[in-house]
């Protein structure tokens, strides 16, 4: 009997949901007190809805089975009853109040950003995250680490390339945070709207350009937590993961020291680089690898761009004829377009290498080797 099949199917669906453990078919319980409360809230409403569903559909299918013409049912005449109408207006209303109370409590707590221990400024841009350790004075970019061969199979050549365990959910430098501290996030964006989301923390906050939104978390357990950008932000919206590495407070302190050391080291490197002379060969190798990771998303590996969206660099008059403008646009970007300033993102040496690469790849062969000082003159460090 079809009807029975349907009933069984529906009950099956419901019970599969109800019995769902935090696995890959249900919301994660996460690792913060808030995320636990959100999870509980989610399960509570889900179960209430399922129960209402069972009652309503149960009544309906009972009628469908019993009150069918083929069973000789004769239609009753009633078509009104103020009493039941009031009942089924009031009862759902009360149920809703029952849901609203815990929801309100949780929400008010989630929005209480005061008394934080650590502040991190999170900035989204096409298509990477920038983390600034607000009170420590350093920061870094965090980019997708999955190599293009693993996902780009448009020409059918990469069918056999195995995908890594954390395919699309891995970055070059994760955000490192201590457990047990109240961490406040200042979320914003440089270009379009992104959304910073870590399911395990139950934190999802839109990154609106020109505004700062706040969110916070206290992580209970060390671990690596993965999320993704959750607001359509253009072509590579799907390739903008968030990875957070939660460590103990001691480990965090060690890590902070290392970072500060490397900031000092980087300054030294930059000074040295300024004094050194880059060779064509060195620049081309470095430039190519950087171009592929940082520029090819828009301008494509072969420099052809995407006509109408991202300009081709191959045979670009600017590159061929105007060296200064070429350096300038890479260093400072072009306001009001997707071409962002790379001066904070890459070192002067790296920019020099990329520009050299662009000036000599794809048959350009200008023979120019850009030096760090050329780039430094435009404002890059």
């Amino acid at each position: 009997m079809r009807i029975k099949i349907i009933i069984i199917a529906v009950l099956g669906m419901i019970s599969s949901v109800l019995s769902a453990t935090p696995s890959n078919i249900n919301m994660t319980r996460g690792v913060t007190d808030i995320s636990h409360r959100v999870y509980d809230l989610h399960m509570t409403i889900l179960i209430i809805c399922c129960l209402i569903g069972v009652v309503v559909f149960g009544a309906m299918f009972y009628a469908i089975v019993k009150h069918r013409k083929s069973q000789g049912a004769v239609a009753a005449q009633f078509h009104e009853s103020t009493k039941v109408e009031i009942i089924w207006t009031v009862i759902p209303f009360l149920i809703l109040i029952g849901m609203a109370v815990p929801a309100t409590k949780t929400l008010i707590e989630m929005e209480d950003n005061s008394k934080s221990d650590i502040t991190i400024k999170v900035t989204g841009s096409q298509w990477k995250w920038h983390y600034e350790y607000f009170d420590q004075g350093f920061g870094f970019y965090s980019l997708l680490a999955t190599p293009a061969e693993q996902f780009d199979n448009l020409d059918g050549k990469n069918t056999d390339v195995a995908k890594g365990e954390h395919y699309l959910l891995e970055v070059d430098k994760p955000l490192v945070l201590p457990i047990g501290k109240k961490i406040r996030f200042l979320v914003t964006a440089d270009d379009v709207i992104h959304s910073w989301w870590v399911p395990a923390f139950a934190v999802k906050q839109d990154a609106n350009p020109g505004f700062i939104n706040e969110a916070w978390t206290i992580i209970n357990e060390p671990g690596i937590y993965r999320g993704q950008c959750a607001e359509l932000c253009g072509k590579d919206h799907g390739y903008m993961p968030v990875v957070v590495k939660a460590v103990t407070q001691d480990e965090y302190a060690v890590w902070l020291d290392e970072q500060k050391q490397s900031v000092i080291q980087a300054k030294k490197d930059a000074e040295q680089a300024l004094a050194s002379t880059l060779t064509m060969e060195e620049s081309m190798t470095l430039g190519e690898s950087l171009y592929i990771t940082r520029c090819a998303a828009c301008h494509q590996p072969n420099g052809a761009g995407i006509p109408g969206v991202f300009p081709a660099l191959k045979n670009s008059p600017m590159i061929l004829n105007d060296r200064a403008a070429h350096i300038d646009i890479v260093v400072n970007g072009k306001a009001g377009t997707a071409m962002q300033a790379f001066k904070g993102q890459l070192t002067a040496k790296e920019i020099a290498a990329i520009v050299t690469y662009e000036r000599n790849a794809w048959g350009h062969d200008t023979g120019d080797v850009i030096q760090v000082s050329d780039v430094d003159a435009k404002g890059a460090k």
Partner: protein
Amino acid sequence: MEQQTTNYYVPAQSHWPIVGAVGLLFIAIGAGMTVQQMTSEATSGSWLLTIGIVIILYMMFGWFNDVIKESDAGLYSAQMDRSFRQGMSWFIFSEVMFFAAFFGALFYVRMIAIPWLGGASNNEMTGQVLWPNFEAIWPLVTTPAGDTTQAMGWQGLPLYNTVILLISSITLHFAHVGLEQNKRKQLTAFLTITVVLGVVFLFLQAEEYVHAYREMGLTLSAGVYGNTFFLLTGFHGLHVTIGTLMLFVMLIRVIKGHFSPERHFAFQATSWYWHFVDVVWLGLFFFVYVI
């Protein structure tokens, strides 16, 4: 609510709708291409746009002509008249909502966006970190990015224009009274005055725009103050232009002897439209200029 349905006139066929649809096609493509071509030399877009507008004007002329003929032939019942009137009222309601959206944008930037940029509400860090030098005031004469402009006062031209529009609503009312009482002279005279007032309004507004652009640095792109100012007054001005044209057509028809005290839907509709445009201006004057 009994309706008498006998003899509701259903026109058999008409080619005006398809003409109108093609006209809109041209306008949409033409307008789209025109803005795309603003930075280039190409003019194909504006040609298409012009063709589209011409087609639409042709359609309106022909369509209304048919309606007038049908009406003169006595095909329309009182019920048909009600359909027209209700249709027009709902159309004006849709226009109200169009302006409401822009007013909503204005209120939002004034009461929410700009204070937030200055650090109000839950945006303390927005002000401190991103726009430390920004001062949240209205009119927004200095944008967060630092561009400056000047605010348009309400004295002078805007005030004159308010008075002009208010008077024009009154004169139009007298014209209508004249029509209803079959005093054709009063009708013609007051309608003429209304048209003239409409034209004067537009002239003064053009004057104001020139002044804003030339002397005040207040342009369409001068931050949200300029944006809301020009979009609201601009769309209003567009409506005044259309309204004036409609009034002008009514004037010609009046001179030709159209309309009777009982049957003058087109006149009625135009006058509703004009009063609506007037009310919008009052809102504008108050929210855009005065406070």
